[in-house]
């Protein structure tokens, strides 16, 4: 299976600049690249040094509404060329437009009857402009969806940011997507590209990015002492809430083993009814009859095949399920989960 890395980020957030840098790394020598643009004239591909048969420009405009078929066609074409021995590649990078919702591309990879046999989701990399992102996040739903879908966030233009601006943005990003690692363009390429798999997932939870790290009122983790003027106190019991867009992230922290079958039925039904407003769900689960944890992650209506992990991260063996959503009540979701699974010790935590 060939991993497909989705490179997304709002307009002007530095996707192409990052892609240029990534493509200089030897590990990316075997990467095929698909670029989508919004507009009559495609320009971004001229910014890439390497133009050959493995760089394909998708011209039909915004990827979120029109290009799904074209992404499928482009990937199918790449696979055909590889099968015939005309090209070789070991991974694919898709650079989306700045206005794209990553979900349709991920859905295409998962649902397309041919592509899903050859390609797998290699992770979502979202660039975030350290200077302008704060406003974008508060006013543009596209930016929030891109951040929510991220497995890893790469901050760009940090050298242009005002003192304190980056720290405030990091805090806001951690609110919006507590399960994503946050790096900058100054970080090594291997750190930006590596480890989208279960190991990274475990590490995120071990470091408390899963949304519930179990620290008490005396906790002195630096992430709580943030420079955001609107958050000058601990909010451990309350979901993080973005007032402008109504975007909330919170975790269900669940004691006791979960019935996988009922959990799957519940989450499927929840996403069937509310997937448009659930930007992201990601979690680690203790299941009845299983010693090892199972990781689940999804974007809107789409849930990827669950991962059976090798071991539990450090700390208590409790299930944690992170939601990033808009306009839905965390407490209602908690009550629904409790009613459907029959587990009583479930709490919603920021």
């Amino acid at each position, binding site marked *: 299976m060939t991993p497909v890395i989705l490179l997304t980020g709002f307009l002007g957030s530095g996707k192409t600049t990052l892609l240029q840098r990534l493509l200089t790394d030897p590990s990316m020598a075997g990467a095929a690249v698909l670029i989508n643009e919004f507009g009559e004239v495609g320009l971004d591909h001229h910014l890439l040094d390497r133009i050959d048969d493995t760089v394909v420009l998708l011209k039909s405009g915004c990827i979120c509404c029109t290009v799904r078929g074209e992404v499928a066609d482009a990937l199918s074409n790449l696979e055909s060329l590889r099968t015939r021995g005309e090209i070789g590649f070991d991974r694919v990078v898709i650079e989306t437009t700045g206005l794209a919702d990553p979900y349709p591309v991920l859905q295409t990879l998962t649902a397309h009857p041919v592509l899903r046999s050859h390609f797998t989701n290699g992770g979502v990399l979202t660039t975030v402009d350290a200077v302008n992102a704060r406003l974008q996040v508060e006013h543009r739903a596209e930016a929030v969806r891109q951040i929510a879908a991220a497995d890893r966030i790469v901050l760009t233009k940090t050298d242009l940011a005002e003192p304190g601006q980056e720290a405030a943005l990091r805090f806001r990003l951690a609110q919006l997507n507590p399960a994503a690692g946050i790096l900058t363009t100054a970080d090594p390429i291997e750190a930006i590209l590596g480890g989208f798999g279960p190991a990274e997932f475990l590490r995120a939870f071990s470091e408390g990015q899963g949304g519930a790290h179990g620290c008490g009122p005396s906790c002195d983790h630096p992430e709580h002492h943030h420079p955001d003027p609107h958050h000058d106190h601990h909010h451990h019991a309350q979901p993080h809430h973005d007032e402008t867009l109504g975007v909330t992230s919170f975790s269900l922290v669940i004691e006791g083993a979960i019935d996988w079958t009922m959990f799957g039925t519940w989450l*499927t039904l929840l996403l069937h009814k509310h997937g448009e407003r659930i930007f992201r769900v990601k979690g680690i689960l203790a299941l009845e009859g299983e010693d090892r944890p199972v990781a689940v992650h999804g974007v809107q209506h789409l849930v*990827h095949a669950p991962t059976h992990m090798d071991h539990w991260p450090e700390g208590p063996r409790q299930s944690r399920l992170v939601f990033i959503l808009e306009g839905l009540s965390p407490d209602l979701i908690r009550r629904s989960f409790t*009613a459907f699974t029959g587990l009583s010790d479930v709490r919603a935590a920021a």
Partner: protein
Amino acid sequence: MCSLCGILGCDDHWTNAIARPGVYSRNHDAQSRRTESARRIKAANAILSFRRVTLDVWQGRSYVVSSPTGASSVFEALSHLWPEAETLAGRDFDPLDEGLIAWMEERGRV
């Protein structure tokens, strides 16, 4: 084939993923498939009973949802269950609906 969108081979739902390295699945062999299928039908029926709809296996390969008036609908993959059930019931199944939450809480107490 998907009865909703016409796509072939779309029944690889995440709750019933094809067994492969690293993927959590209860889809290893005929016995585990049958056992999990029965559990899934039981779980779904607990929810469907809220609107007096029932789910069952149809000829060993497909599924059928039925209403108390005798109407029924056959479909091939459990991923289509909720759209089919809602069409048959004429109402939705919303896990955040207070009535459905209370229904499931009541069942848990029985």
